[in-house]
């Protein structure tokens, strides 16, 4: 049975959510020198660049953008048949004493964020780490909560929430794939649906 | 017992005998271990057999009935390595492979370079499932330095001499060995590989050894050794038998020598007739490590050509058992050799007869009459009055080689898992059934 797919966020709504997140980040982190954003590869990286662009437009100052692959910090590396492709992590600035805003597309189980937190700490000791996500879909398996949320979307555990970005997919939209027909990880930018 | 006129009758088989002619359906009557008569199946004969007790009749309908096969090159490992093979187990393997006579090489521990060891082997072989003929050593302890007491060896029954596994590198020693053997009318059986050129070699030197980084033994090592010995054979007028010919140039050298009247004979093994060195790289199977090594496709084809045109007189297995412990190791640390008694006939049928290289008649000649002639052995014929050493072959039987089915104590065959056609149905030694499927 083919899974039912529907669009839950359009380009307009995504932009509105990202702009609001950018405003909130600025509000919470007024010190331009200490704030940095790190996007989680793959989809979180695109969002990090967009949020950074919005911040620059609003404030007229650049915000450093780092990209992070959390593959090496996953807790399920050896329980999968295939190894996730490891992308290059690029954090070309010092995180020590910075306010790090970690950015991802969908917050689900919290395991991706757990891996990202561990990895950031290995790069140094930031003053704070904050979490921004476009979508919070619930079903947490770890005690993790986002500081900035674009949209809360109630889902069933077996649903798939998929972000498309123009940079990769030629369109900005968020889709939901309902029910059992949805393959874990299918169509998702993030490998394996670590959530 | 009903009729004591005959002990056993092989009924309705198709006879293939180099001496009697080929392809005839016949009945073979056996009495007191000898072939009493071979007759065409007339109504009277059939009636006579019908009256016999069923236990006295082997129904060979659709089967081939041939003289017991003769393998002039086997290693029985006893004395010394009874864990790998004993004379008894080796003879059981021979029987299972259709061989009723085998010639065992002298590289046992101690070496068969003295009367006592010949006697030991002969004693052990009594009541075994095959006739064992002993090949004595050319030189003491196979060292290539001093001749062994060849006269003594011949006197007690050695049928030939050989330093098999080693090559008497010193041409002077080889010359004296040939001259001395000539005095007794026996041939020198030679493992022809120059020891300097193949020092450390564990496979054929070719692109395959280049690819695998294994040290190669070049074909030229065999060619040089064969050429030297042919020269010495011509010079001394002695008899030379080249063992396990494996290269194109060695075949060519023997062909030329024979054409010139040199008294040389030659054998080829099933593995050199079937395998090529490309097999080794597949999984470094130590059962493919053998001396001389498995050669290239071109060499193999040349050996087949030599067998077909008569340059190579006979097929011999070079049955060389090694224990699992000895073979279960890194490729280049494994001892050389593979067992062959139980797969030879099927390989000949599957890869030479079925591929059109040899007729059954040619193949049987090269495994019976020809080897018998080379070493002046009895057997090799179904002539009336000769010992009832008979092999019955189920020529179309398909089977798969399985390690646990070998009678040999060792399982070091690269053919395990191979699908074969043609199987030994029964083997008779002096009228006694020593093997049946």
């Amino acid at each position, binding site marked *: 049975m083919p899974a039912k797919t529907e669009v839950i966020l359009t380009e307009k709504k995504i932009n509105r959510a990202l702009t609001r997140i950018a405003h909130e980040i600025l509000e919470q982190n007024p010190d331009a020198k200490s704030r940095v954003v790190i996007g989680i590869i793959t989809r979180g990286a695109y969002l990090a660049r967009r949020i950074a662009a919005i911040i620059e437009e609003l404030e007229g100052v650049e915000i450093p953008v780092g990209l992070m692959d959390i593959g090496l910090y996953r807790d399920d590396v050896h329980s999968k048949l295939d190894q*996730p*492709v490891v992308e*290059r992590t690029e954090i070309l600035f010092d995180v020590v004493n910075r306010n790090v805003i970690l950015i991802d597309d969908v917050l689900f189980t919290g395991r991706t964020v757990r891996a990202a937190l561990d990895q950031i700490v290995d790069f140094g000791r930031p003053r704070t780490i904050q979490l921004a996500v476009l979508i919070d879909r619930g079903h947490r398996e770890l005690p993790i909560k986002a500081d900035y949320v674009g949209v809360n979307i109630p889902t069933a555990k077996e649903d798939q929430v998929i972000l498309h970005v123009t940079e990769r997919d030629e369109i900005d939209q968020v889709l939901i794939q309902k029910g059992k027909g949805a393959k874990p990880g299918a169509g998702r930018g993030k490998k394996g649906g670590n959530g | 017992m009903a009729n004591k006129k005959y002990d056993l009758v092989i009924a309705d088989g198709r006879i293939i005998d180099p001496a009697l002619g080929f392809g005839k359906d016949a009945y073979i009557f056996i009495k007191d271990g000898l072939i009493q008569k071979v007759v065409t199946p007339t109504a009277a004969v059939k009636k006579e057999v019908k009256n016999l007790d069923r236990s006295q009749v082997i129904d060979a309908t659709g089967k081939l009935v041939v003289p017991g096969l003769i393998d002039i090159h086997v290693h029985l490992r006893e004395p010394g390595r009874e864990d790998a093979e004993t004379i008894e187990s080796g003879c059981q393997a021979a029987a299972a492979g259709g061989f009723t006579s085998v010639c065992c090489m002298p590289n046992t521990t101690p070496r068969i370079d003295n009367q006592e060891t010949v006697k030991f082997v002969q004693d052990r072989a009594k009541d075994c499932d095959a006739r064992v003929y002993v090949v004595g050593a050319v030189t003491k302890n196979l060292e290539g330095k001093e001749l062994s007491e060849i006269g003594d060896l011949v006197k007690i029954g050695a049928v030939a001499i050989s330093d098999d596994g080693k090559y008497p590198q010193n041409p002077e020693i080889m010359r004296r060995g040939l001259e001395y053997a000539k005095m007794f009318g026996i041939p020198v059986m030679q493992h022809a590989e120059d020891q300097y050129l193949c020092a450390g070699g564990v496979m054929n030197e070719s692109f395959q050894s280049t*690819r695998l980084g*294994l040290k*190669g033994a070049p074909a030229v090592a065999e060619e040089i050794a064969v050429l030297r010995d042919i020269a010495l054979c011509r010079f001394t007028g002695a008899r030379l038998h080249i063992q396990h010919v494996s290269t194109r140039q060695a075949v060519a050298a023997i062909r030329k020598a024979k054409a010139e009247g040199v008294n040389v004979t030659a054998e080829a093994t099933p593995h050199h007739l079937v395998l090529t060195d490309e097999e080794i790289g597949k999984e470094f199977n130590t059962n493919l490590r053998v001396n001389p090594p498995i050669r290239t496709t071109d060499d193999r084809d040349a050996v087949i050509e030599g067998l077909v045109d008569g340059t190579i007189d006979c097929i011999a297995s070079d049955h060389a058992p090694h224990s699992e412990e000895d073979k279960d190791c890194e490729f*280049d640390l494994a001892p050389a050799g593979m067992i062959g008694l139980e797969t030879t006939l099927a390989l000949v049928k599957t890869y030479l007869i079925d591929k059109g290289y040899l007729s059954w008649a040619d193949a049987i000649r090269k495994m019976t009459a020809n080897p018998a002639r080379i070493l002046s052995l009895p057997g090799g014929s179904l002539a009336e009055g000769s010992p009832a050493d008979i092999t019955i072959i189920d020529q179309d039987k398909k089977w798969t080689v399985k390690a646990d089915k070998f009678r040999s104590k060792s399982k070091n065959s690269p053919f395990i898992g191979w699908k074969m056609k043609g199987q030994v149905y029964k083997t008779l030694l002096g009228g006694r059934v020593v093997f049946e499927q």
Partner: protein
Amino acid sequence: MSRLHSRHLLGLENVPEADISLILKTTNSFREVIDRTIKKVPTLRGITVLNLFYEPSTRTRISFELAEKRLSADTVNFTTSTSSVKKGESLRDTVQNIEAMKIDMVVVRHSSPGAPYYLTRCMDANIINAGDGAHEHPTQALLDMYTIWKKYGRLDGLRIVLVGDVKHSRVIRSNIWGLKTMGASVALCGPSTLLPYEVEKFGCDVYTDIDEALDGADVVNVMRIQLERQQSGLFPSQREYTNLFGINKQRLKLLNKNFTIMHPGPMNRGVEITSEVADSGNSVILEQVTNGQAVRMAVLYLLSGRKEEEG
């Protein structure tokens, strides 16, 4: 998601282009980890790796050990000479004993070609060949390839000359297979006595004149020449080897612009390569060493946890 076609790395012959590309791409990601302040990631936590070295080796063993430690694997070393093992227990018994201690991966160096294949039959662990006789040394070739790829952004179309003892070199063999799979043009050069039988069947250009070999090449990978080859009569003297095959500044003029000098080490300075060349700006010899760790991390990562049933 992506996976290698085999759960072992035994050699580069028959390794498909997709697998080599995946290893090189993954290496590039691990290369960044090595430059971090904390050069350690938790990826292989709980995985135990045995470094089984039947031949003396300092560089390769340290490189593997560092790679394992940087991936948070537990490592054990078993180092022995073949001769002492010959007297003692068989390779099968040794590895089965070790495997009974619950080893997940084995990095093996052995003087017998095919020994890593043999290990795959003795145990369930993932096997990585760290050099088997004159057969293959896949991680060395992969690090050579990564180093070239990093500099030029490609391998296809480049002309790479491998100079030295082709007959006994496992590094050359692995480089030939890997480079050819990736579309590079490979030339071999060495004294004719150190070119193995039918070497031309590798499908490379083969030279005995170093100047002809270097003409128009992009990369020269110089192999160490072993003194014992001279002693066993394969070439007359070190002096003559240096004259005929040594890479010196004069000979570099034959190479393409932006050429690269490589050497897997350890170098015999003044024999197969002059110091002037080894230490020049075009030399990436030390970069090779650093990249070696990243390649080994990538291979360990990609093979870890791969079980038998997946093939």
